[in-house]
């Protein structure tokens, strides 16, 4: 089963990817942080390493993932995300945390 998910990127990343601020990605199987980011990086390879550390695969410290007015950053990478994200009615937000200038 595949899902079409909306991902909203911060300005630094959509400029790097030369993409719109909100992109659609197709996710196969369960919709999780890992499957969304894998799909996003397949479509925009230049984003590899910018949200997850190359070496550890962990979310970078100043990156946050929000959706449906919830902070999902601390979910495990394979935990299911809200149904509205999987349905494509709510975007999965990639946020650069407020951490200085």
């Amino acid at each position, binding site marked *: 089963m595949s899902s079409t998910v909306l991902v909203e990127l*911060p*300005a*630094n*990343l959509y*400029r*790097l990817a030369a993409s719109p601020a909100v992109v659609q990605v197709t996710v196969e199987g369960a919709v999780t942080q890992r499957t969304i980011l894998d799909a996003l990086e397949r479509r925009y390879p*230049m984003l*590899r*390493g*910018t*949200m997850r*550390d*190359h*070496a550890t695969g962990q979310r*970078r410290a*100043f*990156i946050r993932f929000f959706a449906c007015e919830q902070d999902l950053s601390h979910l495990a990478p394979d935990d299911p995300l809200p149904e509205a994200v999987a349905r494509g009615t709510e975007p999965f937000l990639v946020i*650069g*945390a407020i*951490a*200085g200038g």
Partner: protein
Amino acid sequence: MSQVRLLVGTRKGAFILTSDGTRKQWSVSGPHFAGWEIYHLKGSPADPNRIYASQSSGWFGQVMQRSDDGGQTWNPVGNQFAYDGVPGTHQWYDGTPHPWEFKRVWHLEPSLTCSDTVYAGAEDAALFRSTDGGANWQELSGLRQHGTGPAWQPGAGGMCLHSILIDPQNPERIFIAISAAGAFRTDDGGKSWKPINRGLHSKYIPDPTAEVGHCVHHIAMHPARPGTLFMQKHWDVMRSDDAGDSWSRISSNLPTDFGFAIDVHAHEPETVYVVPIKSDSEHFPIDGQLKVYRSRSGGHEWEPLTRGLPQSNCYVNVLRDAMAVDTLESCGVYFGTTGGQVYASPDAGETWQAVVHDLPAVLSVEVQTLP
């Protein structure tokens, strides 16, 4: 008529400044990669249209960019910097072991002969090389694993490999420098390395003459005389005439020998430039007067160069990679400041002009002399 292209890396993007050979009127392009820290960008000597840039961010990590048209357009290339084998540990600020972790690329050094080959100096200190135009990076791990690596310790700016010099007469010989480990040399293209810090004296480490632990800020070389190196250390300006095997102090009449940047005149191997900075805690010029010092005697005697530079209320810094020289007949000298100015001298330092006043803090300045 010749052209000059300045490649300026700043805290919030890259800028490209161009002028004809008179170096009076400048056009400015940028910011490229707006909002990102551009620690360094440098053109290939083998193909001046090929420029590599290190783009990084505390949020989004490391990105590498490449231009094949002199900086008009850019494309991201490979950004995976994996330490070879089990990375091990170095010393942390408090002296405890700390795992090696990649943070960013401080310095890029394109090969002198092949535009697809480029070296990258990283924090945590390591040397990487790409031979495919930046698509893939491999660590030259003999440096980190030669024996003293576990004793290396970061300086205040991080444990960065910030200087890379390739011997134009012997491409197997490369010099690098790390804060705060010191200078190192390979004679076999990067397979094996040795510390070259004999003669350095650093009172901020337990053994001031230790083999490693010195906070070398920058090293410079004249291409016609690659056995002679000049060094700006945390304190002390030094020179070596035996490819780094030994060093002697050349601070002589400098008002302070703390500083970051050092460079050599393009046509006069004994003419050296530094920007003295007051002290390790006061990172600005003495008395608010910005002065470049030039020695025409290889460091025996220094003279201040001030015409066109602010001589009151100037409290900027000039960082280690923020000085460069062009190769026009009348050697141009350039430097950028943490206040966002880039100064140019078309006459080897006699007179200076602010090319731009208000960029973000300047991290690096490189220059390309174009036909």
